[in-house]
């Protein structure tokens, strides 16, 4: 008997193993089974129109994921066995990993929880399957990131308690509150926030140029987990685009709701990525690409193509896109200056860029760096050389929405903060920008509850009234080891020992005026 060896077509296989695994409920109403599908106002008339262009089924998913994991862990082993941390460009680089582990990895876990939840809430089987795979991917990402960085934790400070720190440290409330905002929204807003605005529109900026930078700085472990995670991301991005198109095609009433979510989540994501801007421009000793160039390629060019494609549904580019495009000249410098003056309260070190690095910044930012930012850094450098390293000993005003200190400047005037404020039900609220102020105005009840770290310290909820007590007892930062200036830090000394260099004590870590 002749056997038919012909495989099922991808399309048929996907149909059998995904859609056909679902069933119509007989003794419960759909509304009771999927109670969160309607309340946001999104109208779905036909879930069968949901497209998964990868048509990935669970059997193929496990096969490819297993192969990725084998490759990844072989490299982790090789990296650890060969003391890969000794081959990075410079130990300053590790500070970017500290920020990554405390700021980004817990978001992967948040995404795992988020997709597990919303995957349960859709009555369409295609959407449930896609969310389930993504939930598993996100769990894999947080695990592989922790494994990759556990090697660095053996050799450098500040990596020892990332989950605790994520929940408590002031600047980590920026990523934490971003994800909490998304996870506390309905399932369709969550997908628009994370799958579309974050994954499709913005994460390339973190995972592509930054990871290429990790490679260029000799960090084999990080580039490998980064790219392994990002290989899942191609699927996530596709889901992000498909979910937007699907919602827009289902009903015209969905268009204004989605436009509002795109406006909101583009701005929320842009503010979150300001942390990445300084990682790229200031924390990679070997430079690959400036933040500005990355923004041009991965937002202006790619986002331009994307939003042109979505025009046919009546969607326009995000409301504050022009402000964000202007910000590419400024935000990395503004963020680094902020962390330079507040690193008595961070789990990582900061420093003044070297002369060579400042020249690179001048070349990359010919219209802004020398005019607005170099004088600030050179002033601080001169103080540091006199043994008076500058720290700002007063806590900053935080934006009520993004929770970043209100440090951003007017789009057309980099000498002036773009501070906004308003009164709501007798209380005054402060914002970093029109973008964040708009988000508040739309849903004030959500943001009046914001857990703002500075106010929490002042209310006495953080185990102490002075910075050192809060940092040590509440944040679990090992004061004098994890925080303060890089030059003269234990990490710096250890690196000098690895490289057989003599320690230079002239610009020591804990100067006179530190808190």
């Amino acid at each position, binding site marked *: 008997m002749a056997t038919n060896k012909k495989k099922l077509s991808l399309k048929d296989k996907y149909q059998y193993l995904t859609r056909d695994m679902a069933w119509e409920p007989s003794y419960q109403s759909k509304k009771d089974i999927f109670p969160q599908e309607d309340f946001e106002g999104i109208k779905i008339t036909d879930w069968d129109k949901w497209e998964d262009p990868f048509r990935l089924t669970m059997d193929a998913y496990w096969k490819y994921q297993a192969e990725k994991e084998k490759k990844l862990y072989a490299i982790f082993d090789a990296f650890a066995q060969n003391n890969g941390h000794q081959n990075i460009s410079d130990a300053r680089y590790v500070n970017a990993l500290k920020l990554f582990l405390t700021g980004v990895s817990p978001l992967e876990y948040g995404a795992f929880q988020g997709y597990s939840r919303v995957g349960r809430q859709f009555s369409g089987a295609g959407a449930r399957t896609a969310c389930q795979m993504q939930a598993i991917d996100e769990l894999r990402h947080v695990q592989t990131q922790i494994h990759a960085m556990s090697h660095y934790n053996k050799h450098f400070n500040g990596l020892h308690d990332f989950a605790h720190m994520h929940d408590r440290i002031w600047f980590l409330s920026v990523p934490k509150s971003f994800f909490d905002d998304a996870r506390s929204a309905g399932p369709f807003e969550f997908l628009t926030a994370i799958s579309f605005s974050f994954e499709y529109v913005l994460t390339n900026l973190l995972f592509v140029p930054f990871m290429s930078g990790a490679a260029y700085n000799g960090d084999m472990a990080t580039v490998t987990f980064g790219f392994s995670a990002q*290989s899942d*991301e*191609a699927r996530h991005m596709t889901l992000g*685009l498909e979910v937007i198109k699907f919602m827009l095609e289902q009903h015209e009433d969905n268009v204004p709701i989605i436009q509002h979510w795109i406006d909101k989540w583009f701005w929320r994501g842009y503010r979150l990525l300001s942390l990445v801007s300084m990682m790229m421009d200031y924390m990679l000793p070997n430079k690959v690409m400036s933040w500005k160039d990355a923004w041009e390629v991965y937002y202006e060019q790619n986002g331009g193509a994307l939003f042109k494609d979505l025009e046919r549904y009546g969607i326009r580019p995000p409301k504050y896109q022009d402000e964000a495009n202007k910000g590419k000249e400024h935000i990395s410098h503004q963020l680094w200056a902020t962390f330079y003056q507040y690193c008595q309260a961070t789990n990582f070190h900061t420093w003044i860029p070297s002369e060579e690095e400042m020249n690179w910044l001048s070349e990359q930012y010919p219209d802004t760096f020398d005019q607005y930012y170099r004088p600030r850094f050179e002033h601080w450098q001169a103080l540091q050389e006199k043994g008076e390293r500058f720290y700002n000993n007063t806590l900053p005003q935080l934006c009520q929405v993004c929770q970043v200190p209100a440090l951003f400047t007017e789009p057309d005037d980099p000498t002036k903060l773009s501070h906004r404020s308003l009164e709501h039900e007798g209380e005054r609220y402060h914002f970093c920008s029109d973008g964040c102020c708009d988000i508040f105005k739309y849903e004030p009840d959500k943001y009046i509850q914001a857990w703002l770290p500075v106010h929490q310290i002042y209310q006495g909820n953080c185990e102490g009234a002075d910075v050192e007590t809060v940092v040590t007892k509440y944040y679990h930062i090992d004061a004098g080891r994890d925080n303060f200036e890089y030059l003269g830090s234990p990490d710096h000394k250890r690196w000098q020992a690895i490289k057989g260099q003599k320690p230079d004590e002239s610009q020591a870590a804990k100067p006179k005026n530190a808190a």
Partner: protein
Amino acid sequence: MSQLAFIVFQDNDNARYIVEAIAQDNPHAEVQHQPALIRIQAEKRLVINRATVEEKIGREWDVQEMLLDVISIGGNVDEDEDHFILEWKN
């Protein structure tokens, strides 16, 4: 305005054959090498043909194998047994 479809691969042994196949089948594409990655971009449309990849790599190749080496994409995805297409339609 220009609308670039793009795909980014890890710079590894597998991906190099895929990149060769893409370059051959998409003469309008530009290939950029950056640390650890290869980015290919082209106006509006990029296609990966299974047949061309198999010819380059010298074995049977499943289109979904690209999931192992891809880092990022830009464009609407259309995939079947023989092709992987990225395209901006508007």
